[in-house]
């Protein structure tokens, strides 16, 4: 039998290729392009090699915002993951209240990010906001527009309020999928509440928690809108995270080369951390 060669089917992939090229590859390549060139406008470009990368990597400003970024991401992960698990564990397993809890939990996730920022801005204002006013009325000196510690606390609280729900929902789904026989076996074996958590629930939650961790890591590492609306990166630069700094460099100062190099470094860092974490946590799964 003669085999017919007809590769026309590849044309069907063309639209997808086109879309991916336009929305991912071309912009990324533009950034790569900017990162190795200097421009003074008029569409005139000069090749600069690795100059921008070297500058970014040696810049104190970049180090500072990177440090703030890691501190922020670390802090919210340390709060949101355990808190999400605790909340999921204490939610009812079934019945009307389970649905009520789920809806309540999902609410913060449905609010647009800039609205979250605006809400917390007003909520935390020391003179009229419920939170700010109450804290000051209790004798605590709190003003997130002037005190770095207050600003940090507010940004962290806002992120915890906004995103813990995601961890809760993932962990809750993970908990629901544990077969009842495990709990019964644990009772028969005389396991304590802690042992049930340590040896049944936590191992069974491992995969959803890895997903939760990755999602929260990536999202918080790229956080922009909420702190931008809430503090604008201030007071001073104390809440200027990487993406805020990046936008400042690119659009505020029009340092396209620096900004492009920053973007690429930023992108590679996110990729590297996710890959490292995923590989390390999946190690020993396949034996």
């Amino acid at each position, binding site marked *: 039998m003669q085999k017919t060669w007809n590769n026309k089917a590849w044309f069907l992939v063309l639209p997808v290729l086109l879309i991916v090229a336009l929305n991912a590859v071309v912009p990324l390549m533009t950034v790569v392009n900017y990162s190795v060139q200097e421009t003074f406008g008029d569409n005139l470009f000069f090749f600069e090699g690795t100059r921008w990368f070297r500058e970014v990597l040696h810049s104190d400003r970049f180090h500072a915002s990177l440090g703030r970024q890691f501190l922020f991401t670390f802090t919210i992960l340390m709060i949101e993951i355990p808190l999400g698990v605790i909340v999921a564990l204490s939610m009812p397993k079934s019945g009307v209240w389970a649905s009520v809890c789920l809806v309540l939990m999902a609410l913060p996730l449905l609010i647009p990010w800039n609205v979250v920022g605006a809400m917390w801005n007003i909520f935390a204002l020391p003179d009229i906001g419920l939170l700010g006013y109450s804290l000051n009325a209790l004798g605590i000196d709190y003003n997130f527009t002037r005190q770095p510690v207050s600003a940090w606390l507010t940004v962290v609280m806002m992120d915890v309020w906004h995103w813990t729900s995601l961890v809760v929902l993932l962990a809750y789904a993970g908990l629901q999928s544990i*077969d009842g*026989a*495990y709990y*019964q*076996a644990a*009772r*028969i*074996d*005389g*396991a*304590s509440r802690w*042992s049930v958590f340590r*040896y*049944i629930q936590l*191992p*069974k939650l491992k995969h959803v928690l890895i997903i939760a961790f990755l999602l929260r890591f990536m999202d918080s590492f790229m956080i922009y809108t909420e702190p931008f609306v809430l503090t604008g990166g201030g007071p001073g630069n104390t809440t200027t995270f990487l993406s805020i700094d990046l936008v400042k460099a690119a659009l505020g100062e029009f340092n396209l080369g620096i900004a492009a190099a920053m973007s690429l470094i930023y992108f590679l860092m996110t990729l590297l951390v996710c890959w490292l974490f995923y590989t390390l946590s999946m190690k020993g799964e396949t*034996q």
Partner: protein
Amino acid sequence: MARINLDHIRHAYSPNPQNEDDYALKEVDHVWDDGGAYALLGPSGCGKTTLLNIISGLLVPSEGKILFDGQDVTHLNTQDRNIAQVFQFPVVYDTMSVFDNLAFPLRNRGMGESDVLKRVNETIEMLDLGAWSKRRAQGLSADLKQKISLGRGMVRSDVNAILFDEPLTVIDPHMKWQLRSQLKLLHKQFSHTMVYVTHDQTEALTFADKVVVMLGGEILQIGTPEDLFERPSHTFVGYFIGSPGMNVLPIALEGASAHLGAQAIQLSGGVSVQPSAKVEMGIRPEYIHFDPNGMDVAITKVEDIGREKIIRAQLEGSEIALVLNENEPIPADPKVSFKGAGINIYADDWRVDMGA
């Protein structure tokens, strides 16, 4: 190890049972011997899992009491009943080693580490798990995992009973046999009281000293495998046990003879039944054979299953099955007769004794 006393137990899942049909488990009043191996056998929804859950303490029966060695445990929860259970799907603690899995119930009860070591090593030896004792339980095969969950029960020397809830469902066929015989062996050696739920008659008959056959929430018969085969006390038992099941034929009684259509079959004794009762004769396929002086049958189908043949035939308008050795020929003019010892008489589905 304990004697289990099921004292007039009934259970309904709804709060206000109005009539007999509302009970998922109809009245059970039995004593199960210490060290016995019992199998609860029946089709899905027959109440066997309900009964098991009542014994394990997952369910409190609506009525009646359950006693372990004379002590009322009806309202004790699972952990206080001191039982062990092997579930349908293997339950192991993934992150622990096999050794730690087995040590878990002992450590939770505050046993000293040197005693733990001794008991666990004994159990590992008993179950042949030595090669895996240091391995993490996670990647092991289903049959090893089931052994581990069995081991977590056996490691405690004082368990009242070990319960099995269809434990071989996820095991490969060739391992099923092996596990079953090992279970039987362990029971012989250590004589734990064992209760085994299954819907597979082979499993029940090979495992248990006593098989409890259930249907529609009711216990139809508790007996040895031989009892169930020779003297099924209900037509369902006859039909459910054995392959093919018992033939059940409508008859009319006249003294010590049974009329099946135009045929008369001599019984070993007289039978008295209610005049309104539906009377049937039960005869297993193994007790019917070809006989030149027997009753005329018309063969409808022959199923060759290897060592033997199953013959389906019409006898006086009823369908019967009989079993034939593979080398026995099928006669051209088939006539059959029944072996007297294999005949049971049923009135309204329940077995009635024949007088001498």
